[in-house]
Structure formats: structure tokens, C-alpha cells
């Protein structure tokens, strides 16, 4: 099966990185897996074989399998016989997202996540003011509107179209938008 590949030069780690760097999130096609912090490492092991390390996002995220398939297909196209390693620890966090990814998310209409450990992450604090139907708890982080930049926004729903997002509304421009939740 690998005979044909022996004549070609085995791609270097840099070349594999470059190829994998073109892969985007299936649900958010403007950011790459690397920028999202999902694609963690490409390395050569002691026995000379190559390993690609990914860290899954939400436990039940259905896009993870698509991402794994995309990585495998890209490696196959390159003719690299690399092992795909799924590494849980340290757990993926939105803090790993690069600034480039955050800017792209905002331009795409998704408010990027606040830093983990900020007020919005604290589930056990008291809720106090009734703001609207779907959310009694006041959203404690300011989530600026990705369209007009206004800080006058409100949470419509804790949970949104994918596991990683919640639904917000801008009270200035009145546009609804997704907020990538800190994780």
C-alpha cells in the first residue's frame, strides 16, 4: 500500500503543519482548527513515525468526527502515515483561541469568548434581576455586539445552535447574534 509513497519524499513536520493549517471548523468555516486550539501538535515519535494531536472541544460536539475525518483525509493526500492522537488533558479551553481566530469570529458575526474564570463562568452565584423571559440571571460578562460594537446586549438563551454558543441580542442595533461561550 505504501510502495508508491516510498519514491516520494516524506513531507516534513512543517509541511504537514502547513497542510493541516488549511482545515477549518466545519460549523464555523472562517477559523482553522489550529486557531481554535483543537489541532495541538504534529510531532515525530521515537520510532520515527508521525503523530498528529487533537484535543476535542465539548464532549458531545458532533463536529469532532468531521474534524478527525478532515485531518485523516489531508494526511492521506499528503501520503503521510501519521497516527491521529486524541488527547483530553489538558482540557480544551476557549482561552487557547488565537487573537486571529477571535477577530475572524467577530467579523463572521459571532462574539468571541471572554476569558475563562470570569464572572460569566460562575454558575453558583446568586441571580438577582429579572431581565427577560428566557434568562433570569443577568449575563455578568459584557458581550459586545459583533456587528455594531455596542455593549448594550442581553442574553436570549444560554444554549444556542451548537454546544459551544449561546444566543444574544443587541439592544442598540437589535440584531440577534451568537456568543461563543467561555469553556
Amino acid at each position, binding site marked *: 500500500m505504501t510502495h508508491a509513497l516510498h519514491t516520494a519524499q516524506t513531507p516534513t513536520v512543517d509541511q504537514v503543519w502547513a497542510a493541516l493549517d488549511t482545515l477549518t471548523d466545519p460549523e464555523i468555516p472562517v477559523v482553522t482548527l489550529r486557531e481554535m486550539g483543537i489541532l495541538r501538535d504534529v510531532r515525530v515519535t521515537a520510532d520515527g513515525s508521525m503523530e498528529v494531536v487533537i484535543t476535542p472541544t465539548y*464532549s458531545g*460536539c458532533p463536529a469532532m468526527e468531521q474534524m478527525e475525518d478532515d485531518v485523516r483525509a489531508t494526511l492521506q493526500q499528503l501520503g503521510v502515515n501519521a497516527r491521529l492522537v486524541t488527547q483530553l*488533558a489538558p482540557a480544551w479551553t476557549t482561552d487557547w483561541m488565537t487573537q486571529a481566530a477571535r477577530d475572524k469570529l467577530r467579523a463572521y458575526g459571532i462574539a468571541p469568548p471572554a476569558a475563562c474564570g470570569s464572572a460569566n463562568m460562575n454558575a*453558583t452565584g*446568586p441571580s438577582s434581576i429579572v431581565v427577560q423571559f428566557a434568562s*433570569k440571571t443577568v449575563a455578568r460578562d459584557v458581550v459586545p455586539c459583533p456587528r455594531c460594537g455596542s455593549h448594550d446586549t442581553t442574553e436570549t438563551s444560554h*444554549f444556542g445552535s451548537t*454546544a459551544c454558543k449561546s444566543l444574544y441580542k443587541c439592544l442598540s442595533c437589535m440584531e440577534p447574534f451568537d456568543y461563543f461561550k467561555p469553556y
Partner: protein
Amino acid sequence: MAHIDYLLHLADNAVVLGQRNGEWCGHGPILEEDIAMANISLDLIGQARLLYQHVAALKNDGATEDSLAYFRDAHEFRNYTLLELPHHGALVGYAVDNRDYAATIVRNFLYSALMALLWEKLQTSKDAQLAAIAAKSLKEVRYHLRHSQDWLVRFGDGTEESHQRAQAALNHLMPYTQEFWSTSDFETQAAHDGVGVDTRQLKADWDSLVQHALAEATLQLPSTEGFVTTGKQRVHSEHLSFMLNEMQSLARAHPQGVW
């Protein structure tokens, strides 16, 4: 083996509540809650998958995540009885009638409050893979707790009817939480080995979390006395086998089926 049984207990809890909450998919009281329940179920089933995969790797006897979820029967499951109950009060005889969202929210609150404490402790389990799963699951359960606590307060401190239904759900479900603190051989052994956590250590924090939320919700803490359920020791209520029957039917009808 206590280690395996402990992991199965955690996995079965997640898959059973994930399946129960998934019953709201397409039937949620409002669109946002329909989406919330689907999201929460997805997290729980994802957690169960990671745990079942870990069990399968440890057993190394041909078991897979699918065989563990779909080809064990009710008497092999180790979930808390609380999690298998249908979404309604004590006296409704069948599973699909009169689902009450108050029961859903109260159960999610009671369980998420426990798991927020338990996953935090399990991050330092001697089982490194379990510790890794705990670190991920903790991030997820905090959102589940925030969601259910939010609605608990909204229902309790809401209209006369929402208050009454939240209180009724609480009165019905609270006695089942005794199982959180009852001891079992596999949990004692797992805690002794540094794999698991003795949940009795968590009770004071859980009590205070619950009391704080109930006070804000203007709900009364009901009695938690009476029969102590034994789901984690594989002796269940009549509801689990009906639920599993539905959950497992597709896999059993097409055992080699792939997407």
C-alpha cells in the same frame, strides 16, 4: 472490579439522564428550552461516550462504547434511580403522559449540583483518563447547573402555578437524592484506591448549594426521608427498562449497522 463499576456508574448516570432529557427534543415548552435540553443531552451523552470508551479500553475484552450502552440490560446499569424517572410527578402511571418541565428542571438542578462538586474532585483522580474526563465535564456541568438553577428560581419565585409545580417536583424527587450519599462496596473501594470520591464528603457543600437556591426560589426544603433507592447497585425502578427498551431498540434491531 470496583474501578470498572465506578466508571460505569458515572457513565450510566450520564447516558440515562441524557436520554431522558433528550425526550424533550421537538417537544420543549419553548424553543430556547428545546434547544437547551438537546444541548445538555449532547454534553451528557458525550461524557458517557468518553467514560464507556475508557471502560472498554480497561476491560480489553471486546467491549465497545456501543456494546456497553446498547447491549446491557437494566439490571446491569448502575445509574442513580433519580435519573431514570419519567418527567412527571409520583402518581402518573406511564412515561409520556403529562410531562412536567418542573420535574425536568428540579432533577437537573439536584444532579448538576452534585456533579459540579464531584467532577471538581475527580480532576485529581489517580485514574488519569478519568481526571481528564472530569476536567472537561466540569466545564459542561457548570452550564447545566446555571441553567437549571436559573429556571428553578424562575419557577419557584414565579406564578402560583409554577411555584406549586416546582414544589411538587421537589417533594417528589428530593427523597431520591438519599442515594447520592448511601454507601456501596464499589464506591467505597474506588474512593479507597484514589480513583473515586466518597460523595459523603460533598454533602455539606451540596446542602448549602441547594438551600441557597431554594431560598432564592421561595421553595421549601422537603423531607428527604423514606426509602433509599438502589439504582447504582443495579436494582432499579420499573421505569429504567422501558426507557432502555426505546434507547436500545435501533442498535439491537441492527446490531452491525453503521451510518
